[in-house]
């Protein structure tokens, strides 16, 4: 079956944990393995953190920047998570997605956020422009325990 959920929350660091746990709880319906669950949590954490520290850079909590999160899955067990902010946007998306690239000078950012998202999910799309905010859409095929069993059987029969 198909399913869908949406969450809107204030762009504050306390909500990073809330967001990743919420998406993981939603994804449980696909019976993911523990490593798949960890991948989802890590990728969501990266995208939400980017929205908060880069998208809304320089914003105060009083200004009320919001993060808009949507998650859905379909009959193929493809989980899609999109995370949108209405912040400053990205001037050069290609450059921003390069490993070790960071605009957070002096703040010990690793510059690995997009790299982690791309590694832990199967597809990552970024839609952004200066002053227009950013939407990160990530997809992951959830193999789950059924897929692992299938792999074991295939190994057995050679």
């Amino acid at each position, binding site marked *: 079956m198909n399913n869908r959920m949406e969450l809107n929350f204030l762009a504050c*660091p306390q909500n990073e944990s809330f967001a990743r746990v919420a998406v993981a709880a939603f994804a449980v319906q696909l019976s993911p393995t523990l490593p798949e669950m960890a991948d989802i949590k890590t990728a969501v954490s990266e995208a939400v953190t980017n929205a908060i520290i880069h998208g809304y850079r320089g914003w105060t909590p009083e200004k009320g920047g919001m993060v808009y999160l949507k998650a859905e899955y379909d009959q193929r067990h493809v989980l899609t998570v999109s995370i949108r902010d209405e912040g400053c946007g990205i001037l050069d998306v290609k450059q921003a997605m390069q490993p070790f690239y960071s605009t957070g000078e002096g703040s010990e950012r690793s510059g*690995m956020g997009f*790299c*982690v998202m791309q590694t832990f999910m199967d597809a990552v799309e970024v839609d952004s422009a200066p002053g227009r905010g950013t939407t990160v859409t990530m997809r992951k095929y959830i193999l789950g325990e059924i897929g692992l069993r299938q792999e074991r059987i295939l190994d057995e029969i050679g």
Partner: protein
Amino acid sequence: MQQAKALQDRVTVVLAGELDHYTASQIRAQLDEILQDPTLNHLVLDMGNLTFMDSSGIGVLLGRLRILQMRGGSLSVKNMQPPIAKLFRLTGMHRVITVLDEFKGGQSE
């Protein structure tokens, strides 16, 4: 961060809970307080009780590595749980930070 054990110029710190952007500043400050002791050159992070880490945590580790390297020291980690070991491996951190034990549930390379 739960405890610190110092032996000569080496200190072992046990990290617990989650290391993300929200918790990074507190953990960074606590580690830097420990590293204010100029006799400590080698920091070992026991990550056995760390249940989550993302790239914000990598930033914290790389920052401490830089401090320690400037005084001729080193940063090592041990007891990483599988998801954190995977993050470490896939981001190449195992090439710059010493892993003192085998990755749990994952390949070391």
